[in-house]
């Protein structure tokens, strides 16, 4: 395909992450897409699938700050955003910033913390600033939150409300590796500790990619295609209770632009939209109880909804 080469190449991040992580191509690409589009990612999958490693590798490749927060039921909002401590020597309050002040923040098992902690994190994600006492602190830029959820172990968890799920730009399903990938993991990690690739891009590169992504052309037919897909999710069916919000329309456009840029193009193709649509929509559609009763895979409903719309 004819490629208009951009000044920076976000695909170097994919190469860097793939050098460490075996398989998980969708996870790796989703992280880079969210980084370019300026959104946050929800990773859903069982433990041991390199979710944390992928996040750590992303931070290393950018040479950015990386912080990991293990969410537990006794976590407090101050444990994330920071707090004010009285310094007796100075007889004044000083602010201790929390782990959210990093370029890449891994919120591990986000659904294990109660609602007020989730809310504090998600507000910071939305506003990109945190208020501690009388002072408001801007979060670093770029800032990306990668939250994980374990779908197998639901006991003692606090499900994220629909409004908060909507704050995540993408939701990625992390699947188990294939036989060959499992063998490659054994070869790569069983013998020695593998260091992630560092410094293939800078934080300024990320900001430049974001500006380029905003300039990626979205043809009228592509815009109509995006709207058609979102409207299709709102059609009442026995399995769908409510469809995606207008925020999903905007998200689909952002991520499709990022996908085009990642492909080295400055215009969006229908393929870009269709490939990223499951990532954008799967957590934004509300399903009825029949999904659980009839043991229907919601992913099939999402894919069917997208496939029902004719590409331009």
């Amino acid at each position, binding site marked *: *395909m*004819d490629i208009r080469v951009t000044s920076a190449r976000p695909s170097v991040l994919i190469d860097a992450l793939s050098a460490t992580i075996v398989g998980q191509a969708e996870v790796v690409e989703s992280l880079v897409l969210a980084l370019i589009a300026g959104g946050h990612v929800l990773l859903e999958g069982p433990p041991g699938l390199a979710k944390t490693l992928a996040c750590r590798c992303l931070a290393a490749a950018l040479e950015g700050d990386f912080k990991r927060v293990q969410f537990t039921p006794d976590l407090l909002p101050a444990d994330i955003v920071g707090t004010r401590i009285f310094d007796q020597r100075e007889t004044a309050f000083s602010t201790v910033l929390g782990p959210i002040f990093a370029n890449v923040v891994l919120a591990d098992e986000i659904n294990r913390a109660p609602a007020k902690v989730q809310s504090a994190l998600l507000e910071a994600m939305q506003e990109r600033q945190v208020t501690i006492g009388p002072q408001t602190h801007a979060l670093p830029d770029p800032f990306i939150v990668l939250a994980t959820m374990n779908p197998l172990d639901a006991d003692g968890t606090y499900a994220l409300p629909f409004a908060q799920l909507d704050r995540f730009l993408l939701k990625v399903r992390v699947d188990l590796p294939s036989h060959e990938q499992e063998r490659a993991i054994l070869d790569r990690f069983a013998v020695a500790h593998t260091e992630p690739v560092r410094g293939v891009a800078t934080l300024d590169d990320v900001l430049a990619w974001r500006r380029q992504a905003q300039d990626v*052309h979205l*043809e009228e*037919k*592509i815009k109509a295609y995006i709207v058609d897909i979102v409207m299709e999710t709102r059609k009442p069916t026995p399995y769908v209770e409510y469809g995606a919000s207008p925020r999903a329309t905007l998200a689909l456009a952002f991520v499709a632009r990022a996908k085009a840029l990642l492909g080295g*193009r400055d*215009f*969006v*193709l*229908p*393929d870009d939209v*269709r*490939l990223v649509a499951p990532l954008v929509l799967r957590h934004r559609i509300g399903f009825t109880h029949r999904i659980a009763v009839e043991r229907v895979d919601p992913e099939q409903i999402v894919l069917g909804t997208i496939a029902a719309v*004719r*590409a331009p």
Partner: protein
Amino acid sequence: MVLLLAATAQAQQYQRLLVRAFTLTTDTARPQLEQPFHVSVTIRVAENLTDITNVFLPTFFGAEELGDEQQTTHGPDGTTYRETLTLVAHTRGMLSISSAYLDAVDARDGKPKRFISNSLRIPVGGGPVWAVWDALRAIAYVVIAIVTAGAAIFVLAVIFWRRRARPAAAPAPPPPPPLIVEAEPDPARDLADAFAQLRERRDRAAVLVLRGALWRAAGASTGETLGDVLRRPAAADEHLRRLLMVVERAAFIEQARLSQAVEDVLSEREWTFV
């Protein structure tokens, strides 16, 4: 059923009652001549009382009272007073029994009132001979009803049969189908035409026409994406693949750079079926 009418009375002599029901009933809708029957006055009040006073029994003409029995019962919802008169009618025809009265202070508003029950009008049948006549008349009524219903069913059946027997109007012959001569699909000619159109017009619409022709040439239908088309076996030809890509670019690139994208398409060697 209770009929309540206010009436002036001497309040100090009356019981204070919350009257819930005051009815006059009979145990037969059609008493027979010289045969005893019963008429009951029933009063239900909310209070618990041993007796209810100031009850005025109904009056009647053409019947004789044979007996009078009073009964007072108590329950959780108050007192029920029932006075049963045993009567015998001496004349045939309609027997009118007037309302019964009860004078009491209404517990609802503390005012003395006269409560009035319903009245009765009951037909009195006549003796053994008349009973035979009544039975015959009842049988006649049944026979008349059966005959009337049979006649109605017969009339409806005749109407229905006549409607069905009427010959239906012959349907108009369908118009002859329009003569459509479909042109044989010719992908090679479509492609050539699309290329020619693009060379001539060099606009987005012409690009989309060429894109559609290439889609069909690769065996794809509208609604598929470039990724779908490239996965088709018919798109294995390297030249076709490259052409599909440059046409896709021209289809979705911004308007300012469309002319260059069209030039890129036209600079590709025109692809034809081998």
